[in-house]
Structure formats: structure tokens, C-alpha cells
């Protein structure tokens, strides 16, 4: 920096000499880095050849031969390949991350707003939550939920019976599994139509307000379209939905929807932990909107809900979105702590089992890293698109 600043004052020949020197230094640095990489690759190749480990991606289509406790797509130890195992692990990572993002966002916004409450008890409870949760390591929290809470549930025989035929024990949560008859597609179509109509209604109401000034309250009609319409179709179509009730045998529970304790523990821990950070992000975003903004809106006669919706939230959201994005990225990456309790996520299945069996550490780790990188980049992209939508122009 100092060089650049001084260079304009220096004589041309000296500046020229210095530029050449800088260039040589840069080239040397790049050469050293490339050399180190080459040496490492060579070393790895030699060592793997010595240990009789294959290289390349040929293992992808070999039979995996190990079981995975939770698979969203068909998988069997004897018939499925390592490639299939990769997809099973990836889907498990995406599942737990996606659900945890939704839950942590909801919980985080509620706690963040609660911490701003004028009610002493509510704000203190929210503050206590944040301080407790964010100061304890996540790994410890995952272990807590798994070992101290879920694994200490009763054995199969003493299962807690839930309403509507569900069971809860230390093997997991067993719920009635929805079974959709073909006619159920009519309900889905009705829901789509309902959502479309609700959106159209919103646009109509906004145009009408611009024209006549009259405000229409849309909560009732929107609910009727989105909930009521599909429900009526559901009844008319003869209730095309049944539930597979889990059936308790002597050694096992068959049928129904099974939620593994590993999944539940990881989901709860990730949601609860990230919610504490999101709560702080939300609180900071709302506090960053000056009190004068609310006062100006109130002085104009706007009601407090209108003030929130039209003045405070739009300004708070632009503060919230960027740090919210990094919380989502953290959550997704933190889901790899699944290995600690044996939830079959990408790291446990692919960078764990597959790596151990094939021994092809370089390829497996490289693929795993590339996957996390891709997930993070896609998340960032989506959030920055959303951020641009809520951004304040202020040009």
C-alpha cells in the first residue's frame, strides 16, 4: 500500500524496477503454492498405491454393503451402490437442515420479538433462553437431547401411547402414516387453485384500495380459499386419505411413520441452538430502526399494527437478512455434527462409512466439501435474491 502511495512520486525508472520485483515475487509465490499441492498429491498417490488403494471415482458404482438407518429413497445394503449411499446421506442432510431452518426461524423470530417485549417476565425469559443456549457448545446440546432426553424414554414395552395411535419410546417416535388415495390429487389441485385465488384477491384488493381508498380485510377470505376450499373438495371426494396406524408387536413396531431419535435429537438441537442466534439478529434488526420512525408514523395517526407492517418491518428486514443468511449456512454446516449421535447424514454415511470401506479419502473428502460448498452457495444466492426484494433502495 505504502509502495503504491509513494510510487507516483518516485522516478519512472525506479518505479519500473520495483514493479518487476513485485511481479517476480508474485510468480515465485504461485510456483511455491503449486509445488506444494503437486508434492502433496504425489505423496498421497504413492502412499495409496503402497496401501493398495484404488484411485479415481470407480468406487461410485460398487456395491455398498452397509446399512443406513434412515433412507428417503430406496436403499438396501446388498443391492445399492456407494453412489446411492451418497444420495441417501445428502438427502438426510438436506432434510434435517431444511426442517431445522424453518423451525429455528419461527422460534428465533418469536424469541427475538419476545425479548423486546415491555412485559418484564416475557423479555427476561427470552433473554435467559438466548444466554443459556448460545453459551453452551452445540455438540454438547446434541448429546444432551440424544442421551439425556430421548434415550432415557421408556423401552418398547413401556411405550408412551399418544392420541391417534402414535407411540413414543427410546427407539423413536411412531406416528400414523398418511396414505393418499389417487383421488387425493383433487385436494392438491383445489389447494393450488385456492392459493392462486387468494393471490389474485390480494392484487384485486390492492388495486381497489388505490382506486377507492377502501381497505379490505383479507384474513377471512384468504383462510376460506386456502383451507376451506381444499377441505370441501376433500369431503366431496370421499375423504381420499387414510392413515397407516403403527402396530406394536412384541419386538418391534411395524407400519406408521417412524421418526428416529437421532433425527429428532439433531433437529431439536440445531433448531433450538440456531434460534438463539436468530433471536439476536431479529432483535438487533428491530432495534436498528430508530424510535423516531415509529413516532413519526404514530404522529401521522397510523395504528401500531400498520406502523409495524409499513414502517418498522421493511426497515428491520434489510438489517436482518444478511446475518440471517449466515445463520442458515452455519446451521447446514453444523448438521454434520450428526456423526456424534449416528444420524446418517452426508458426513456420517459418505465421509464416514464409504470412506472407511473404500479408503479413498481424497476423492470422498473432495466430493463432500464440494457438496457443502454448493449447498452454501445456493443458500446464499437464494437469500441474496430475497434480500434484494426487501432491500431499501434509498438512492
Amino acid at each position: 500500500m505504502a509502495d503504491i502511495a509513494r510510487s507516483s512520486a518516485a522516478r519512472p525508472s525506479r518505479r519500473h524496477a520495483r514493479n518487476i520485483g513485485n511481479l517476480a515475487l508474485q510468480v515465485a509465490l504461485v510456483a511455491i503454492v503449486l509445488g506444494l499441492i503437486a508434492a502433496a498429491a504425489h505423496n498421497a498417490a504413492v502412499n495409496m498405491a503402497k496401501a493398495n488403494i484404488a484411485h479415481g471415482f470407480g468406487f461410485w458404482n460398487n456395491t455398498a454393503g452397509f446399512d443406513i438407518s434412515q433412507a428417503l429413497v430406496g436403499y438396501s445394503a446388498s443391492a445399492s451402490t456407494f453412489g446411492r449411499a451418497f444420495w441417501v446421506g445428502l438427502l438426510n442432510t438436506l432434510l434435517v437442515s431444511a426442517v431445522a431452518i424453518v423451525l429455528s426461524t419461527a422460534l428465533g423470530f418469536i424469541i427475538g420479538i419476545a425479548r423486546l417485549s415491555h412485559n418484564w417476565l416475557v423479555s427476561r425469559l427470552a433473554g435467559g433462553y438466548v444466554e443459556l443456549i448460545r453459551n453452551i457448545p452445540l455438540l454438547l446440546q446434541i448429546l444432551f437431547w440424544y442421551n439425556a432426553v430421548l434415550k432415557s424414554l421408556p423401552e418398547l414395552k413401556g411405550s408412551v401411547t399418544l392420541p391417534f395411535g402414535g407411540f413414543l419410546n427410546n427407539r423413536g417416535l411412531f406416528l400414523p402414516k398418511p396414505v393418499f388415495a389417487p383421488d387425493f390429487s383433487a385436494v392438491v389441485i383445489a389447494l393450488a387453485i385456492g392459493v392462486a385465488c387468494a393471490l389474485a384477491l390480494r392484487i384485486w384488493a390492492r388495486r381497489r384500495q388505490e382506486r377507492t381508498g377502501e381497505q379490505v380485510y383479507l384474513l377471512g377470505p384468504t383462510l376460506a380459499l386456502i383451507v376451506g376450499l381444499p377441505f370441501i373438495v376433500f369431503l366431496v371426494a370421499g375423504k381420499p386419505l387414510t392413515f397407516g396406524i403403527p402396530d406394536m408387536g412384541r419386538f418391534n413396531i411395524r407400519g406408521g411413520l417412524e421418526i428416529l431419535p437421532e433425527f429428532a435429537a439433531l433437529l431439536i438441537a440445531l433448531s433450538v441452538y440456531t434460534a438463539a442466534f436468530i433471536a439476536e439478529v431479529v432483535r438487533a434488526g428491530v432495534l436498528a430502526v430508530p424510535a423516531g420512525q415509529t413516532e413519526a408514523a404514530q404522529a401521522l395517526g397510523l395504528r401500531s399494527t400498520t406502523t409495524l407492517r409499513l414502517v418498522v418491518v421493511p426497515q428491520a428486514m434489510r438489517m436482518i437478512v444478511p446475518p440471517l443468511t449466515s445463520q442458515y449456512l452455519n446451521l447446514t454446516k453444523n448438521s454434520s455434527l450428526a456423526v456424534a449421535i449416528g444420524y446418517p447424514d452426508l458426513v456420517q454415511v459418505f465421509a464416514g462409512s464409504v470412506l472407511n470401506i473404500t479408503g479413498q479419502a481424497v476423492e470422498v473428502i473432495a466430493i463432500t466439501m464440494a457438496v457443502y460448498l454448493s449447498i452454501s452457495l445456493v443458500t446464499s444466492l437464494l437469500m441474496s435474491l430475497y434480500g434484494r426484494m426487501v432491500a431499501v433502495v434509498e438512492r
Partner: protein
Amino acid sequence: MVQGSTDAADEKARPEVAVEIAGLNKWFGEFHVLRDINLNVARGERIVICGPSGSGKSTLLRCINHLEDWQTGRIVVDGIELNDDPRQIVAVRRDVGMVFQHFNLFPHLTVLENCTLAPIWVRQMPKRDAEAVAMKYLERVRIPEQAEKYPARLSGGQQQRVAIARALCMNPNIMLFDEPTSALDPEMVKEVLDTMVGLASDGITMLVVSHEMGFARQVADRVMFMADGQILEINEPKAFFAHPQHERTRLFLQQILH
């Protein structure tokens, strides 16, 4: 303590009362910020309030549209008694415009949207009508060409004039100004004061917290001096400046007039 509703000498004062404040007391914790305030403001009257900082003048102004709560006493604005009923509060606020020291424009809305927000959402005006009203007042404060810009692009003086236009769009009967020029660079004070002088000639009721004594002399029907949460003195500008009755008023005027 000087009673506000006395002098009938003012020719502009009509019998109708725009703001009635009786026995008002307010505490911030232990701090007694307003002490037994009694003040009647006639319709169309223009009052300039001055006093040292911490004397409670801004707080008094903010009580009139219930941005501040108080402990004892009553305030009646345009015949509407302010109490804890949110409907009463909103009814008063629809009728009372306020201009803040730091403008408080909405940074995420254009100048025009700043002006149409309340007419659309509070008065339920059609957008086109609200925009026509907004343009009328933006012309009035002489910045119609800035309508599509965002507030951050305007100078302080322009922002404060937008803030005045925004308040006027609600067609208020009473305007409150809380130190409207004290956050401005000196060269921008005049453009804002000129706008306010123009308003004064319209006969709108104005309460102005300000230390612009030239403005007070030119526009005010009465000038009021506050200290320690009390109204120490209130009088017509000529008498107020020529023969201040109270020792503290004299001292204060010396300090700000040099």
C-alpha cells in the same frame, strides 16, 4: 405561574379553544418534568415556546399528540379528550401534525410515498387523490421536483420541508414543531423558517418549540418561556422581548440574543 388563557387583547384569538391543558403533571421516574401546566391555545393561535434544555418544552409538545403519557391533569385537543383509549388518541393524531427535530422521514419510501402513506392508510384516500394532495403540498414547500427521490438524497433543509409537507397532507388543524431548525446547517434554517412563516399566514394553529427569536417576533401571537417544567412567562412578543417579567427569562434572552 402565569395562566395562559387570559389575554383577550390578541385580535386573532377567537373564542374557540384548539388545545386545552389543565393541571398537567408528568414524571420521568423521579424527575418531575412537567409541573402544573395550564395552557389554553386559541384556534389559529401561534405560540413559540422557548427555554433552556431540559425545561420540558419538547415533552409538553409531545403530550399534545400523546407521544408521551402523563400522570395527572387533562389535555383536550379540538374537543377530543386524550385518555388511554387508542381511538381517541388516533382521532387526535389525525388532527394534529408534527414536525420533528431530526425530520424522521421514512428512508425506505420516496418523498411522494412519505407524503401519501398516512392519507392512504389513515384517511383511506384513493392513491391518485393522495398523490394529488401530496404534490399540492410539495409545491407549497417548493420541492415538487424531488417527489420521486428517496429522502437520503435530499439536503437537511429539503428533508425538513418534506416533513412539513407530509404533516400537511393530513390536513391538520394544529401543527406541532419540535425544534424544527436546530438540526439544520445555518444556511438551511431560512428556507424552513420561510415555509413556516407561509403556513402561519394560513391561520393554522401552531405550537413551535424553537430558539429562533426572529421567527417568534415575526409570527408568534404569544411567546412562552419554560424552565424546570413550569411555564414561567407567556406574553405577546413585543412585551415579552421588551419587558421580560421574570429574572430567568431576562437571563435566557441575554444568552441567546448575545
